[in-house]
């Protein structure tokens, strides 16, 4: 009985998503028991017509608002992470996502133009980060996507990104 209270309270005060391993140790339960408890909490929220629910994947959970009321949240919701981003910046993000870890030179080679400013913009938004250096003369910086990028795409790992072909298959189906 207390488990549901603890889970919902921890998610309410936690700084970002909480890993399931934390709950499993705290409440001495396994992952499937935890998922059942989260589902029960979500059912309670649903019955009470609450505007948020616990969103989870296999590894972590967080409290999020329901998508159907997104437009009604107006000014209280945070600004979109991609606000004002240009198509070149999105291209750069796609290249880093699929080719990571990747150097600035490789990105520019694929795009055929300089990509410095796009990289800086994406870095300032927290979508990409410096993930090391390539072991060649000059030690160029390698860029990778961040945890925030995964959160924004609702992915648990970068290996869960769809293959590039899947985007085009979907487009053909539509």
């Amino acid at each position, binding site marked *: 009985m207390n488990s549901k209270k603890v889970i919902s309270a*921890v*998610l*309410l*005060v*936690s*700084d*970002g*998503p*909480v*890993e399931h*391993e*934390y709950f499993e*140790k705290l409440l001495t339960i396994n992952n499937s028991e935890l998922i059942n408890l989260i589902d029960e909490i979500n059912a309670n929220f649903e019955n009470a017509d609450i505007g*948020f629910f616990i*969103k989870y994947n296999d590894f972590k959970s*967080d*409290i*999020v*608002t*329901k*998508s159907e009321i*997104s437009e009604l*949240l107006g000014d209280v*919701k*945070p600004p*979109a*992470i*991609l606000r004002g*981003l240009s*198509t070149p910046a*999105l*291209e*750069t*993000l*796609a*290249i880093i*996502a*699929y080719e990571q870890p990747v150097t600035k*030179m490789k990105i520019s080679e*694929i*795009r*055929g133009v300089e990509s410095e400013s796009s990289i800086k913009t994406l870095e300032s938004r927290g979508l990409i980060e410096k993930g090391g250096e390539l072991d060649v003369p000059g030690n160029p910086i390698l860029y990778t996507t961040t945890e925030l990028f995964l*959160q*924004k*795409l*609702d992915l648990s790992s970068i290996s869960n990104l769809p293959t*590039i072909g899947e*985007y*085009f298959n979907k*487009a053909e189906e539509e």
Partner: protein
Amino acid sequence: MENIQVIENLKSLLVEYTSNTETQIANNLTMIFQSFQNKSLKEDIDNYAEFVLLGASLFELKAKRLLPQDEEVDWLDEVELIKDKDLAFARLLQFKAFTEVGLALAIKVKQTEREIPAFKYYQTSSLSVKPEIRYNIDITKFTETANEVFSRYKTIQGFSHIDKELPDLQVAIDDLLKLVDKRLNTTFEELVSSVNSSQEAVAFFLALLEAVRWGFIKAEQTNVNKEIIIEKNYE
């Protein structure tokens, strides 16, 4: 005919194009036209794409043969040229694909952002489980590590390297020009292979820049990963 068989025939036709007679080429092009009508081929999009590419390459070669020619055309060069074109086309496709993927990612992010995480301002990031680090060390390993640390400490030079005598740039320019004079063309990597220190290599590189600036030699690097080709400037 099986699709794969058709494609294999086309590939060999393209490779051995120069040795085929006009009649053979005409027959094969007719076969391509007929195969386009093959329904099963159309259904197999991968094979179809490869088929169209091969067909287009053959048609391009055929079209070039029909043009009046003042000089002998090296057909192998033509095939190489088509390969380069295909490569450029592939890169364009790759770039276009990433543009589309970028837009698809943006749409997905927009969808995800419809569910807004609860706003929290407590610093409780320690809730993420930290991996346990276990490091076993015995007395021998500890001694080895200590020796390594102290030996590294002893080799720290401080600022003494700044006072080192650096190579003379004028001498490096003279050496570089002498070496380039001896060989018709060479590469920077070849020139620096004989130097003894990294300082000398840097001096050689600066000498190269100076010599190019003064027009004594020409240097070309087509790609950052490729060698710097150097030759004497006879102009």
